[in-house]
């Protein structure tokens, strides 16, 4: 039911999930999230370095999920969307409803939340979500 069980799977993604750490290519400057091993544009000339994104951006597209996967069945309805970060990359994520109407172009910031909990005894998966500013 869950997307992942082993601790290592969570551990590898902590920097990206907590702090939106992706990377960018020193050769051309293009930024990526999630991080890529090779720059799409520069190929073998690419020089990738870690980049922490601000978490600020705007809603590019969104939808309200009413028929969720099992993992999120108690959370529905909820909003997922694509956020265009200020630094360029498009990032998919949950968008919190905090009273501000969500529209295309709504300014958001990254928030820190539980994404899912593995039963009574498993790990708790923390993750960025986006929140209207």
């Amino acid at each position, binding site marked *: 039911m869950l997307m992942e069980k082993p601790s290592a799977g969570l551990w590898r993604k*902590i*920097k990206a999930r*907590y*702090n939106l750490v992706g990377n960018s290519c020193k050769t051309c400057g293009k930024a990526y999230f999630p991080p890529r091993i090779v720059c799409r544009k520069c190929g073998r000339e690419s020089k990738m370095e870690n980049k*922490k994104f601000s978490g600020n951006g705007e809603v590019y597209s969104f939808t309200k999920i009413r028929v969720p996967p099992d993992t999120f069945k*108690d*959370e529905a309805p909820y909003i997922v969307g694509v956020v265009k970060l200020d630094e360029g990359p498009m990032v998919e994520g949950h968008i919190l409803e*905090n*009273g*501000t109407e969500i529209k295309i172009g709504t300014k958001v910031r990254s*928030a*820190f*939340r*539980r*994404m899912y909990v593995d039963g009574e005894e498993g790990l*708790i998966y*923390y993750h960025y*979500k986006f929140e209207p500013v």
Partner: protein
Amino acid sequence: MAGIVGYGVYIPIYRIRVEDIAKVWNEDAEAIKHGLGIREKTVPGRDEDAATIAVEASRRAVVHSGLSPDKIQAVYVGSESHPYAVKPTATIVKEAIGAGTAVMTSDLEFACKAGTAGMQMVMGLVDSRMIEYGLAAGSDTSQGRPGDALEYTASAGGAAFIIGKEKKEVIADILKTVSYTTDTPDFWRREGAGFPSHGGRFTGEPAYFKHIQNATKLLFETTGFKPTDFKYAVFHQPNGKFPTNVAKMLGFSEKQIEPGLLTPIIGNTYSGASMLGLAATLDVANAGDKILVTSFGSGAGSDSFAIQVTDRIDDKRKRSVKVQDLINAHKKYVDYSTYLKNRGSIRKR
């Protein structure tokens, strides 16, 4: 001596009114509101816990301080609702604020005063020059057994303080701190128990009032300060009545405690309570103002602090998220069944 170089707060957007709890248990809402001095309380979202609250507050504290997070060399998180029994909340907070790896971290538990105990620990490290800057957070999604009097007050929220001693960074000097501790079984939760138990009226006189008064009097004795030396005072606030009464007993006016008295509108945020009260008071304080803070944790103990605001406070003020703004923005009221769902109290098997 060490001082506060930045602070941050977090309060969930969800609220439940006393009336919505009282009608489930056939209680008189007006009598409860009058008796406890509380109108409504915060409720954590389903995706919020003591770790997420501590992270949000700590991130705001880092922004407010103006420090690079890799300058923070200690992270202590006080809570009585740590998400894991074994697996520190403090490591999650350390990682999420972007601190490095050469960081002293630990989780603390001392009922409602674990956050201020963390502040004292960081002060010790800073004053002994073992570290330059450290962060102490108090954060809780506190539990109240359905139908118990605590259900009206146990809420969620948190605050974080970054402590250092670099003069140009300090917005408030911590002039003195003392503690008063005894072994008093007024409130407890055993390992694996879903809800705390308490000694009813025993939580008052021999617990809350005795410890807060003795810690505060000890602070007066060791500093020579008296209530009129302080512009503001913050006392732990399990409900709206206790802090008002203890302030009066110690010689403080209602005006002195007004900015930091938050429980009537957000409930008791446990480890966050005194620290949120201090943050709300710093939001309105000016250079030179002295603030007294005395926390209380069941079990039992109190930490008392004499704090004096510096003229650096105005430089950092525009970077802070004000407690009152957070309380009043985006409130979402929930009914009792949604409250139970959010708290994870509805079992499916």
